[in-house]
């Protein structure tokens, strides 16, 4: 670095934005950034605008930028609409989101810990059997899974929505990789104090891995909340619709109340926007750690 020859006037990296070309490039970058910001936020603006407008404002030929009188009554109208089981759908989604996430993390973390830390002769074979399921493209399995679930009589039940999604080979794989790198000294200390595998796992390993759990939990919850194909397959009766299935049914119906539907959209994304606001650090960690989760 000391070898930079100043006498030749070679362009220095730091100074390049001082040249005209550099300045133009800088301005272009900011312009691109702002256009991108506007495009990315546009759909959120449309949700707010339409959710708080009257139907007449939305369908009017001239564009109203934002409703003059915010129609908060749209919320009441949405939940009072007997054609759409909105409250029920939100409840179903919450149950699926919470139980599905908790169950998946519990099962996958225990399996991952067992595979990483408990010596067993055939552990590698079990591991391969789990990893092999990663080869199967997830969405293609909806017909096979439907066959099993329907013969169990679980169609249109919360069980059918949740239980088949609990056994994620990918999550078990991630946990195994994570626990392999967990500091052994901590576990040994617990062993010396007389803890067994179970005690070590629950009292030492889990409490010291909370950021990892939080990252996977955030991603899994969002995935469950937003999932559509499986709930659509299982939710053949409106009592078992999740919020996604309810909204989809609502839009494919012939009579559409746009303001009501957009209020439903706003209500449905609120929990996730809150997660994004408060857990974004974990989310980004989760995305970069797993990288593969949809």
């Amino acid at each position, binding site marked *: 670095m000391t070898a930079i020859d100043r006498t030749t006037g070679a362009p*220095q*990296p730091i100074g*390049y934005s001082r040249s005209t070309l550099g300045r133009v490039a800088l301005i272009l*970058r900011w312009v691109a*950034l702002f256009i991108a910001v506007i495009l*990315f*936020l*546009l*759909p959120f603006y*449309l949700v707010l605008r339409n959710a708080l407008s009257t139907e007449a404002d939305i*369908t009017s*030929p001239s*564009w109203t930028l934002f409703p003059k009188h915010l129609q908060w009554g749209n919320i009441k109208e949405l939940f009072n609409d007997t054609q759409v089981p909105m409250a029920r759908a939100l409840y179903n989604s919450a149950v699926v989101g919470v139980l599905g996430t908790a169950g998946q993390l519990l*099962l996958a973390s*225990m*399996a991952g810990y067992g595979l990483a830390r*408990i*010596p*067993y002769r055939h*552990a590698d074979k079990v591991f391969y*059997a789990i990893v092999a*399921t990663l080869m*199967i*493209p997830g*969405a293609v*399995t909806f*017909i096979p*899974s*439907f*066959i*099993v679930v*329907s*013969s169990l009589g679980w169609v249109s039940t919360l069980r059918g929505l949740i239980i088949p999604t609990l*056994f994620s080979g990918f999550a*078990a794989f991630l946990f195994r990789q994570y626990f392999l790198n967990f500091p052994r000294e901590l576990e*040994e200390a617990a*062993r010396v104090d007389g803890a*067994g*595998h179970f005690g070590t796992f629950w009292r030492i390993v889990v409490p010291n891995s909370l950021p990892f759990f939080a990252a996977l939990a955030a991603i899994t919850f969002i995935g469950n909340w*937003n*999932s*559509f*194909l499986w709930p659509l397959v299982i939710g053949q009766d409106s009592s078992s619709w999740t919020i*996604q299935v309810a*909204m*989809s049914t609502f*839009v494919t119906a012939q009579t559409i109340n*746009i303001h009501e539907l*957009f209020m439903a*959209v706003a209500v449905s*994304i609120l929990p*996730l*926007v809150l*997660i994004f606001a408060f857990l*974004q650090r974990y989310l*980004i960690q989760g*995305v*970069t750690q797993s*990288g*593969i989760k949809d």
Partner: protein
Amino acid sequence: MSTRTAPAPVPRESARKGARRPKGIAGNTLWFWLFVGPFVVGLLIFSYLPIIWSLILSFFEAYNTVTPSKFVGVDNYVDMLTDHNFLSSLGTFTLFAIFIVPLTFVLSLALALLVNQVKIARAFFRSVFFLPTACSYVVASLIWRLSIFNGVRFGLMNTILGWFGIDGIAWLSTVSPPWYWIPIVTVRLWLQLGFYMILFIAGLQRISPTLYEAAYVDGAKPGWQTFRYITLPQLRATSVAVLILNLIAAYQAFDEFYNLIGNVNFARPPLVYLYGISLGTIQDLGHGSAGALILAVIIMLVTLLQNKIFGFGKAGD
């Protein structure tokens, strides 16, 4: 250590195994299955059993039933592979992949570079681009279908066209020219660019600054030169991951097609078609199973091929 961890309350189990192996190992076997067993049982029932059952069913006639009734050999497979609609759904997918994979790659990399170069409010920009990941395909499709690309006059795009005196377009139902590709592709871009941008930013931050410094010392100019000869090669592992994830995800496209266009023959990816035949008015699970397995094999082959071409894993992320 191992003797202390061996659980006491399983005398029968440890006695049986104890004949051959030390006590601690027998205890470990039990503990291993206590930890891994519930997961494996679930995996057998909800991953392995469905595939096997589906494989069996694909050789049978199975209308509105999940029990194999009449054996038909490979007829279901022959039917599917000669089914014009199924083949055209594979064509639809291919076209979709040709649009979405390169666009996602280039644009998410561009966003990552832009965000990475910003000195102020970087977290704000990153959050804005990442935020759509919170939305479901259903939500995004509704916004696209009922607001942005609504075919009537009050849709946003048609309103904008109207300002320039251009007639509105029925975005989602016009087959020629196939305008529906614009909403189909942009909705996925909006939803997934932020996700891949995060992966690229992580990749960019792993590149050692000394590489750039060394290049500047050698007279390289910041911009295209360093991007082409340092950034891009260093991002190799991330790039391969992004391409593969993207292609697999595109194969499984369902939500936005179903919610934007529905089950129509002009733009129907494989999953929408399979959903239609196996869970529509006639539940033809024999043909549905055969189609699902054909699709699974295609996806696996393409993935393997792609891994081979890019040498996935060699770059060592």
